[in-house]
């Protein structure tokens, strides 16, 4: 973790000197299987096709395990199991009993938190600090939170009579594998539905550990089915005629395909898609904390965050100072072994994503933007990118328009409030935004004018199960989390709850 000096007149020397010894989290307590099967109808079964695919550790490029590739016939089997469980067991169970199962899953996840965190880090490349302190605790909290709603559905939506939907098909991305599974499964179960869930092909392992936990919890067979596979598996779920609800988190491109596929089928749909969120810094902001928030906003989880604050707008009067501080801060970030407890930025999730990020860095350079990358050394094997800043960027630059989904920040300056609101909203996306100012009235002004589903004031990337999350425009529709997230899994009489 030694670092090279960068040239400045006044130099802060963050390199070498007193360095942190390697501090890797132990993996001794984790025993991965060689092969993971599908979880259908309460049993772990081989895929009908007999096909398996490897899942690798992006930090070492080594294969971790073989994972079953579910095809259409496996999906059909899972949906039938889910339907049977819904009709015969889950919808007949008292709400209080349903809640008990969800609580039990949450507690078992907590008991196995360390194992889940390590496997998440191995499979996804994210740092152990984040798996341990963010992903796993938040995933547990989603189950705890929604367990509480299970027996209070009748009181959750005043003047509405609610009922469950049936079978929910859920497709989740690779950036927060376990957490996204929790976001999807917990409200679906609390609302009384059964589930067929497909994790992403690059990160299937924690979903399979969750299947083991669910199995151990004694949840009735077929209530939760977990199928691993590629896009074709997801398509089979989306197109299955006996599914009542599709919930998808992933790219806008795939989201559009799904929306077309379910049009006219009567399937309820929520989409949580991409983003190019604006982080807006005014001159009166607490600058040092804002710089932290910007760093957290874009470099959290290697920038693989749909709501990443990837477009920074800085008021011109403080731009020079802020950019200088960002550069200094970049040089204190440790990039490397995701299992090391001191690593700040881990591995890029896959070779494919690494190529995408490199492509955009090249586009940025070709567009004439000024690039600054941290001076840290990065490991020779595995998929790594240095945290990168681009200045001299315009609204018309592609790197400021398109979602990069990596540790790359574009920086633009602004002069007036109206200008920055206009620029922030000038995007096909509308997932999140951040506002940094010491002035309370300005925060409220901004939050009412920015078209984004989530707006953070003087912080960024804060998540809580009680708080709804979702986007405007091409960032999708529907909300996950909170009461709104519960409503997305319920049929409402006397008018449907608007997503």
């Amino acid at each position, binding site marked *: 973790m030694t670092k090279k000096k960068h040239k400045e007149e006044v130099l*802060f020397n963050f390199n070498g000197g007193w360095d*942190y010894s390697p501090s890797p989290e132990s993996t001794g307590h984790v025993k991965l299987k060689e092969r993971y099967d599908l979880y259908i109808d309460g049993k772990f079964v081989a895929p009908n096709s007999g096909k398996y695919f490897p899942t690798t550790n992006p930090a070492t490029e080594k294969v971790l395990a073989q994972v079953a590739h579910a095809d259409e016939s496996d999906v059909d089997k899972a949906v039938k199991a889910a339907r049977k469980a819904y009709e015969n067991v889950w919808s007949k169970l008292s709400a209080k009993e349903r809640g008990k199962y969800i609580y039990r899953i949450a507690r078992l996840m907590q008991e196995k938190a360390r194992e889940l965190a390590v496997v998440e880090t191995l499979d996804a490349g994210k740092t152990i600090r984040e798996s341990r302190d963010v992903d796993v605790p938040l995933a547990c909290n989603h189950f705890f939170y929604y367990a509480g709603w299970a027996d209070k559905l009748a009181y959750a939506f005043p003047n509405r009579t609610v009922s469950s939907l049936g079978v929910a098909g859920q497709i989740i991305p690779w950036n927060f594998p376990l957490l996204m599974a929790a976001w999807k499964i917990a409200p679906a179960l609390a609302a009384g539905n059964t589930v067929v869930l497909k994790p992403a092909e690059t990160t299937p392992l924690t979903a399979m550990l969750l299947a083991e936990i669910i199995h151990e919890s004694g949840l009735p067979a077929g209530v939760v089915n977990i199928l691993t596979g590629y896009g074709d598996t997801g398509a089979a779920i989306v197109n299955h005629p006996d599914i009542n609800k599709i919930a998808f988190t992933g790219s806008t491109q795939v989201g559009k395909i799904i929306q077309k596929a379910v049009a006219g089928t009567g399937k309820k749909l929520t989409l949580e898609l991409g983003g190019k969120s604006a982080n807006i810094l005014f001159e009166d902001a607490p600058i040092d904390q804002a710089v932290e928030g910007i760093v957290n906003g874009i470099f959290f989880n290697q920038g693989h965050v749909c709501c990443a604050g990837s477009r920074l707008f800085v008021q011109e009067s403080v731009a020079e100072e802020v950019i200088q501080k960002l550069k200094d801060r970049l040089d*204190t970030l440790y990039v490397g072994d995701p299992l090391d*407890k001191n690593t700040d930025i881990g591995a890029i999730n896959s070779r494919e994503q690494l190529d995408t990020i490199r492509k955009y860095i090249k586009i940025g350079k070709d567009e004439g933007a000024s690039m600054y990358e941290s001076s840290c050394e990065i490991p020779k094997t595995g998929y790594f990118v240095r945290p990168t800043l681009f200045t001299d960027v315009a609204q018309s630059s592609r790197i400021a328009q398109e979602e990069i989904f990596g540790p790359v920040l574009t920086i633009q300056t602004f002069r007036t409030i109206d200008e920055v609101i206009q620029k922030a909203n000038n995007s096909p996306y509308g997932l999140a935004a951040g506002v940094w100012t010491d002035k309370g009235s300005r925060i409220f002004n901004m939050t009412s004018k920015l078209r984004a589903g989530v707006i953070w004031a*003087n*912080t960024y990337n804060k998540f809580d199960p009680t708080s709804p999350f979702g986007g405007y425009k091409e960032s999708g529709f529907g909300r996950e989390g909170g009461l709104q997230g519960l409503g997305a899994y319920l049929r409402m009489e006397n008018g449907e709850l608007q997503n």
Partner: protein
Amino acid sequence: MNRNKTFKQIPDFKLSPTVDKVGVEERVARFQTRSIKNESKVQGLKMVLNMIDLTTLEGKDTPGKVRQLCYKAQHLHDLQEGLPTVAAVCVYPTMVAEAKKALGDSGIKVASVSTAFPSGQSTREIKLLDTQFAVDNGADEIDMVISRGKFLAGDYNFVFDEIAAIKEVCGKARLKVIFETGELASLDQVRRASDIAMYAGADFIKTSTGKIQPAATMQVTYTMLCAIRDFYRKTGVKVGMKPAGGISSSKLALHNLVMVKETLGNEWLNNEWFRFGASSLANDVLMQLVKQETGHYQSADYFSID
């Protein structure tokens, strides 16, 4: 080492940067997740020992007590080889001569509190005499307190002028300016006090007297480190940092070093630019160092109390 640079432009201290407490707490929590193990732990602990201002500031201090403390400063734990000495011994002005004599040519500095420590409730004349007395008795460093009453009343010019006046009396002695952050109440005020002190000539800025709680919380120290960083960036002048009071465990001390390293870089990781004001920290660090070598924690009775 001590600076006598004055600045042509002094900023309006009413406009000192604002500080967001929640953000600071979050940043500090990140420092505390750093895992310091093995070689870096041993190296860090030795650095901590070498940065300590071993302190006795009591009404009941006597030359005898000070002599014992000075012996401890030079012989932290003779059973353990390769240990550094502490940076300085910190005493009241009346004990400076005794400490100076006891420390001889050990290289350990004598720091003296002054300016009607700890309340600072006295006249300018008395504060100057108090400081002059300490300097005349051979103090290498002066730890002054600011007039918190004047500061909280918004009389920043008074506070500035007082620091500048004391700095003049210090001569070759380095000046540490104590804010008593436990009385300033907010991080915005800590930041403002830091800016005033640095522009007025402080060689070090220091959190607390040790007489008021809370004292050197990581939040306060971090805010001051940020002020030092900005000041260095603007003026090219380095200022030292001394958290004092409340740091009694090795773990907390190491997390303070992490904070210094990641905020100001390696140049500040030595006792010329960073000190711990502490009386009980040294023995905990010694206990940890012995444990690193032997694999066992020893009873507190194996470490001398002076």
